[in-house]
């Protein structure tokens, strides 16, 4: 089982290693723009909770970016592998279990999310942000990457075209990017909308990262919510892998 997980992960690592330079450069573009626009630009005229907006927004940008990278590292490639390149069949024919495949893919997606998050943290310090980095911060980041890598696996196994995958991004990820406590605190939004936002995983990633970064108490509930999402998505992913043989 562990060897099979490693094999699936190894293939992703080979591809990532080959294009690590391009990967790093391309993943720096949007966080740099966010940091300039919301940190230096808009941020200099805004204060949140008597604090600096740049310090407020950095955990949100990390949550948002790790979500996007983890999701897109698994989602589109796996969807293409299933529908167009048919390389998924190589795994289906091989004597490896569905769980090993799911875990290997999700870990590889999470790794990409983590690499890009490390870059943003370094950039944020360059831009002058100040926040606390500790093991709880790292745990929240890892959980967020795992949530969205596993969500991407479920999406890739259920969406039946590349266009559907793009729509998933538009209808699910994009609203979360803006509403899930990334750029502002959602408390002032209409109550029904706020309820929905409170159950979304990115909200809890933002809460956990921001809470730890600003030295507040560890928001255990947010960690539990993210862990539950991971368990649900992984279980669905394994079920879908078993069901893929029509």
């Amino acid at each position, binding site marked *: 089982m562990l*060897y099979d997980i490693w*094999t699936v992960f190894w293939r992703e690592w080979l*591809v990532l290693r080959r294009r690590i330079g391009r990967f790093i450069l391309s993943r720096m573009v949007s966080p740099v723009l966010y940091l300039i626009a919301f940190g230096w630009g808009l941020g200099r005229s805004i204060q949140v909770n008597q604090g600096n907006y740049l310090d407020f927004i950095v955990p949100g940008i990390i949550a948002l970016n790790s979500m996007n990278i983890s999701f897109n590292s698994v989602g589109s490639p796996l969807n293409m592998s299933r529908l167009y*390149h048919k390389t998924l069949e*190589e795994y289906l*024919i091989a*004597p490896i279990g569905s769980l090993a495949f799911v875990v290997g893919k999700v870990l590889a997606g999470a790794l990409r999310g983590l690499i890009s998050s490390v870059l943003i943290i370094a950039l944020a310090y360059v831009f002058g942000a100040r926040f606390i980095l500790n093991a709880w911060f790292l745990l929240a980041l890892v959980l967020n990457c795992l949530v969205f890598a596993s969500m991407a696996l479920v999406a890739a196994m259920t969406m039946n075209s590349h266009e559907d995958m793009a729509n998933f991004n538009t209808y699910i990820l994009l609203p979360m990017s803006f509403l899930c406590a990334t750029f502002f605190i959602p408390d002032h939004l209409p109550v029904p909308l706020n309820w929905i936002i409170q159950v979304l995983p990115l909200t809890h990633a933002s809460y956990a990262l921001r809470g730890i970064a600003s030295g507040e108490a560890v928001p255990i509930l947010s960690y539990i919510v993210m862990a539950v999402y991971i368990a649900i998505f992984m279980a669905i992913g394994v079920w879908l892998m*078993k069901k893929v043989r029509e």
Partner: protein
Amino acid sequence: MIHIEGLVKKFENRTAVDGLSLHIDQGEIFGLLGPNGAGKTTTIRILTMLTQATTGKVSIDSCEVSMGNQCIKAVIGVVPQHFNLDIELTAWENLDLHGRLHHMPREVRKQRIAELLEYVELSDRGNDMVQKFSGGMKRRLMIARALLHQPKVLFLDEPTVGLDPQVRRRLWELIRRLKGQGLTVLLTTHYIEEAESLCQRVAIMEKGKLIALDSPLALCQGVGAFVVEWDEGKTKFFTERIAASEFASTLTTTTTLRQTNLEDVFVELTGRKVVG
């Protein structure tokens, strides 16, 4: 080696395989011949556990083909109709990934990869990205990949479709060489020449049903070893060349006397051509 009994596969309101039963012996090169949509690929997909049968029993090397039965996966090698190599990896890495997925020890993997790249004449291209390969090279690499873990049965689904005649013949030579290794080969094709040239026995399929099964020679002799063609499509079969020749001499239009091929058998049995 392969035993199929009463195999049925239904997709919503279409029956792709309709009560197929056949037995393939160890070391045999067996062909499934039929036009597109005859149920050949669906049969292979069921045998390789990529699709679940609706009903019927299938076993390979005494191991029943059913979901979750991992023993099948160790004894089969599969070359699908579409190119499903990993284009983000090199040729060597593609084979290495396959070896790892089949739990081959590192040293054995290394040795087998080198041997098989040599066998398919791609030794000098091992470190090249697969994306740069031609269709024929990709197909050869797919055969190498399918053979890497030393399967007992090799499935070749339309192995030469889309390849030019020269590359096709080169692949045939490669497949023929497998005969000597005791490997059981099940190949699907809609190329008559391919089935005649490679297969010891051929099953002709039409609309999911098996309509004939024998050696290419016996199938041809079954309808008559010689055929006279005249008036653009009219044919008459004869068991003796002399009788065919005498009949041809009675016709006033242009006639052709030739040996019967599997295309003639297919047309005789179904009333239509395999291709087209």
